[in-house]
């Protein structure tokens, strides 16, 4: 490492300029913040804003065959808002994803808590144990659920062997419940890690203080641990909720006709029905639905947290 003392003292105009710039940077926290942010922002602006801009423009065009009519119109949005079934489909997708999120986070919290507080050594081993199953492909894990829930899968053949049923159960696969189970399994580590991180960095002396004040373990959890871990929980919920709304692979593989989500329709508009503009409009409406739902969840947890403190 080169220390400052080893470099020659700055000389001439360039040196003075360096000093001035350095001074400005040291004095202005905002500028330093943006300098730190700049690489990330450049990547996101260049690779996000342009594509999203294209998407927005597309949603105002119309298409017939491979020809795109560049006249700006709100026709696609009117179609979506005038036909209740479109909004119902978006609503159903949001509902399925919310159920997945709730299930995933509720299941993940205790395990994150367990690793953060009950495990004294080898925490990293546990974290790795949790991620190991997820190094196998997502598509194969969905397939594994097909094996378990399938017509002659583990559950059905097991129950048959026990004599509980003589005809395989058909309500296990190809419905929205199968989508929820599969997604809750698939997104587990994504939920565990942020919650664990927020619990792990918690100031342990606060917990001791609560115990000293005579709190029971449950009171201590509700008054100290849970509120302090809320940022991690919210991060986990967002990380699970947002991507699952747009998923079309899992509904396609295990959802059956009733497990179809809005992602399937968007995919179809782009790749089957040749209507990119309608697909773009659907995407934008879905993105808005996601944003509104996320803000709602965030607002509710914020309220709950403020009331608790």
């Amino acid at each position: 490492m080169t220390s400052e003392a080893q470099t020659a003292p700055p000389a001439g105009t360039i040196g003075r300029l360096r000093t001035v710039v350095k001074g400005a940077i040291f004095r202005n926290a905002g500028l330093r913040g943006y300098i730190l942010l700049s690489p990330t922002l450049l990547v996101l602006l260049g690779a996000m804003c342009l594509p999203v801009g294209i998407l927005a423009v597309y949603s105002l065009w119309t298409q017939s065959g491979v020809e795109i009519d560049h006249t700006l119109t709100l026709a696609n949005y009117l179609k979506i808002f005038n036909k209740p079934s479109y909004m119902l489909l978006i609503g159903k997708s949001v509902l399925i994803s919310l159920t997945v999120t709730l299930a995933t986070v509720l299941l993940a919290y205790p395990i994150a808590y367990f690793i953060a507080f009950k495990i004294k050594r080898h925490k990293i081993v546990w974290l790795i144990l949790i991620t190991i199953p997820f190094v196998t492909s997502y598509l194969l894990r969905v397939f594994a659920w097909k094996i378990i829930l399938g017509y002659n899968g583990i559950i059905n053949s097991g129950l048959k062997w026990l004599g509980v049923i003589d005809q395989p159960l058909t309500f296990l696969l190809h419905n929205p419940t199968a989508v929820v189970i599969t997604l809750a399994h698939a997104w587990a580590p994504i939920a565990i890690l942020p919650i664990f991180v927020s619990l792990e960095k918690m100031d342990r002396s606060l917990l001791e203080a609560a115990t000293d004040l005579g709190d029971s373990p449950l009171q201590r959890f509700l008054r100290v641990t849970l509120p302090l871990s809320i940022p991690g929980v919210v991060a986990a919920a967002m990380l699970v909720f947002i991507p699952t709304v747009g998923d079309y692979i899992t509904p396609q593989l295990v959802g059956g006709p009733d497990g179809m989500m809005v992602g399937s329709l968007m995919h179809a508009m782009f790749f089957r029905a040749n209507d990119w503009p309608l697909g773009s409009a659907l995407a934008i409406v879905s993105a808005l639905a996601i944003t509104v739902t996320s803000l709602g969840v965030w607002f509710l947890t914020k309220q709950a947290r403020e009331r608790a403190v």
Partner: protein
Amino acid sequence: MKFQLPSWMRGGGLTTYAVLYMVFLYVPVLFLPLFSFNDGIYIAFPLKGFTVKWYEAMIETESLQAALFNSIRVAASVSIISTILGVLAARAFTRYRFVGRKPTLGLLALPLVVPGIILGIALLIMANRLGIPLSLFTIGAAHVLIATPFATFVMISRLEGFDSNLEEASRDLGETGWTTFWRVTFPLALPGIVASLLLTFIESFDEFILAFFLSGTDATLPIYIWSQLRFPKRLPVVLALGACILLFTVITVAFAEWVRRKGVKLTPKSED
């Protein structure tokens, strides 16, 4: 000497839950190795007999190996790049109060509110307009885009409420910014960095939709697997690959742990 259970086995209900949860995580995945030894092309019970022919077929399938290597390369690059970007952004957000902080944070989350398929097609059009040929590079770039918000959120979660007094103390003690970073900031951020690297690696290694739209002739593993789902004859070979990845991961982790423990045991000896 009094016998004592390791700490994680004491604690009743929570421990039982943890064990059950691990069963939930592992059982579906363990069917992959089971059926990779099944002598039949359909993934259904009853099992038909033991065979290793799928593993032999796997070793002979060059396209599969190429896809695996492609995925590892992309995921490794993506995890490193996006974690660096995430650390920088998270540090800016948690350390400095600046104008436009909140909107910028929202902008950062943007890749997450755009469904993967749409982002995929938009990026594809853009790559086309800019004349960038489709390759592993375009897949990697798209993955960096979606992995960076993940990395940033994890790092913010770690650095939030981070005591900047520690850094000031270090600076007061005459340390340079660089030394302060290595001695104080970095060790405190390390668990977050590890979590971020893990998370983004998995995110990229497993990502299908963007990779599907942005791939040229080189396929990543999920694209390869998706193409194999059409053909039951090839599916067991894919299961064999899944089993191998699982085994490889377990061995790597076990070896790392063995080395670490060995290291811990040797410490007092060397001090003798």
